[in-house]
């Protein structure tokens, strides 16, 4: 399936769970395609949001983002794009603790309406989230917090490899992707490569997402660029730095310019990759693969 066709599974107004975390295994190609298709009013959720959130707000694709942390990355401080859209009141950033986000996806994936946790209690993070319920444990009498299941309409997840049916193998850090895949009503996988079902069956204990969760599979090499994909490439930091400098200098015009040149103008994802540049792609790949060098 093409990026274009897979993206049509995401409809205006849907809730969308996003795999990976911060700058890792972000389904950037699919987000890029949703921006090109001018999807609107999405309600997104992700463990930790980085420049993917900038793009979703800056392009007006998402109205709200549920996450525990939203900045471009620790190296660049606050996201001026997030600040602009949230502080001026147009967009909403719903904050939960990181574990709460995880347990919300996990409850969704387990098919139960909530899970109990012991954090967020006593904090103002909880005061902002009346949808979580403080609860006296009937077994111990302790105070616990029940966080509601989060079952996105669709999840976007990028993996190292999967078969044509969607049996996906994820190397290294899984983040919350397995729970997210189980929780979402539909899953769109982008993958560095599509392998045969025979290959999947040779190492079934490496399979992390079963095909029956998955509704679309798109092969997109460098599909997480300019973020990293474990064991394949590290983040493309020169591109990231140029991006951050541009959008933090002017969250509106800088973003408009970035979207025009890097999202709308390229004819294809490969054309976008060309803008990052082969030298940076090769460097990032070299660093990415180095995790297996020793």
């Amino acid at each position, binding site marked *: 399936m093409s990026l274009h066709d897979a993206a049509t599974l995401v409809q205006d107004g849907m809730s969308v769970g996003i795999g990976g*975390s*911060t*700058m*890792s295994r972000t389904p950037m190609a699919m987000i890029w395609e949703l921006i090109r298709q001018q999807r609107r009013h999405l309600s997104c959720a992700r463990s*930790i949001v980085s420049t993917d959130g900038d793009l979703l707000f800056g392009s007006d694709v998402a109205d709200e983002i549920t996450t*525990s*942390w*939203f*900045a471009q*990355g*620790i*190296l660049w401080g*606050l*996201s001026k794009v*997030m*600040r602009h859209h*949230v*502080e001026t*009141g147009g967009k909403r*950033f719903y*904050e939960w*603790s*990181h*574990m*709460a*986000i*995880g*347990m919300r*996806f*996990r409850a969704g994936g387990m098919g139960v309406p909530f899970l109990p*946790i*012991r*954090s*967020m*209690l*006593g*904090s*103002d*993070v909880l005061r*902002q989230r009346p949808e979580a319920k*403080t609860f006296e444990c009937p077994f111990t009498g*302790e*105070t*616990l*917090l029940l966080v509601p299941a989060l079952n996105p309409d669709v999840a976007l997840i990028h993996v190292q490899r999967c078969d044509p049916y969607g049996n996906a193998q994820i190397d*290294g*850090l*899984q*983040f*919350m992707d*397995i*729970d997210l895949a189980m929780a979402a009503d539909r899953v769109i996988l982008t993958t560095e490569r599509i392998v045969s079902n025979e290959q999947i069956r040779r190492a079934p204990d490496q399979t992390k997402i079963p095909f029956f969760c998955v509704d679309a599979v798109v092969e997109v090499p460098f599909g997480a660029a300019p973020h*990293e994909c*474990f*064991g394949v490439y*590290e*983040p493309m930091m020169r591109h990231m730095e140029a991006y951050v400098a541009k959008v933090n200098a002017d969250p509106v015009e800088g973003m408009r310019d970035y979207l025009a040149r890097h999202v709308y103008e390229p004819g294809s994802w490969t054309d976008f990759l060309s803008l990052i540049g082969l030298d940076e792609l090769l460097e990032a790949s070299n660093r*990415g693969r180095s*995790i297996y060098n*020793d």
Partner: protein
Amino acid sequence: MTDVPHCTAAEMLAILSARQLADGQVVFAGVGIPLLAATLAQRLRCPGLTILFEGGVIGAFVEPGKLPPSTNDQRCTKRANMVLGSADVLLLLQRGYVDVGFMGGAQIDQYGNLNSSFIGDPAAPRTRLPGTGGGNDISSLTNMIVAMKHERRRFVKAVDFITSPGFIRGNRTRAESGLPAGGMFRVITELAVFGFDDESRRMKVLALNPGVSREQVQDNTGFELIFDDPLSMTAPPTDHELGTLRHLDPERLFTA
């Protein structure tokens, strides 16, 4: 700030923070100074320090010069003992397997509550900060060390917003909020090392950094500090500490 000119404030923070860790501990470290300080402790005195990262890493052993730009990057996993889901690594805190959490801070108050969410009214914030990340979970569930810059606007009587709970409003209010375990253990700044009074849970200066006076600490703090009696003086960074630190972060990613 200090009488040790060969050392930046961030380097001082990293070195003094590293000294707070003990061999054999399991430490949950955030990105930046905490990651660097925990790694420094591991290389200096604590080969059996187990470092956990939020991305889902147990027993990290970060390579010199290859500091990860977040705790969710593949570099965090190099030579680790175990990689697991990021909710699962947080659940280790809830189950009680973690001895100490270690984070940076943007704003702290006299009871050790941290704010990384809002400056101003949350309904119409002057500044929307990045949010809690794992900070709320870590500070809710274990003993915390915080390393942060010491500025009067960051050390306030009451934070605008409790993102990561310390002792809430002091005394037993933390436990009464449903957080029976953990709490703020140490705050490290370029000026001093702080603990918290056992009863009132107010912030207390335990030791002054080299060349720093009581007045200097109080003047840079927006609430009245308790001073330990007798008050200790922290030994200055050694060349070995500083050399090892610079070997770990030669590009000054976290120590600029």
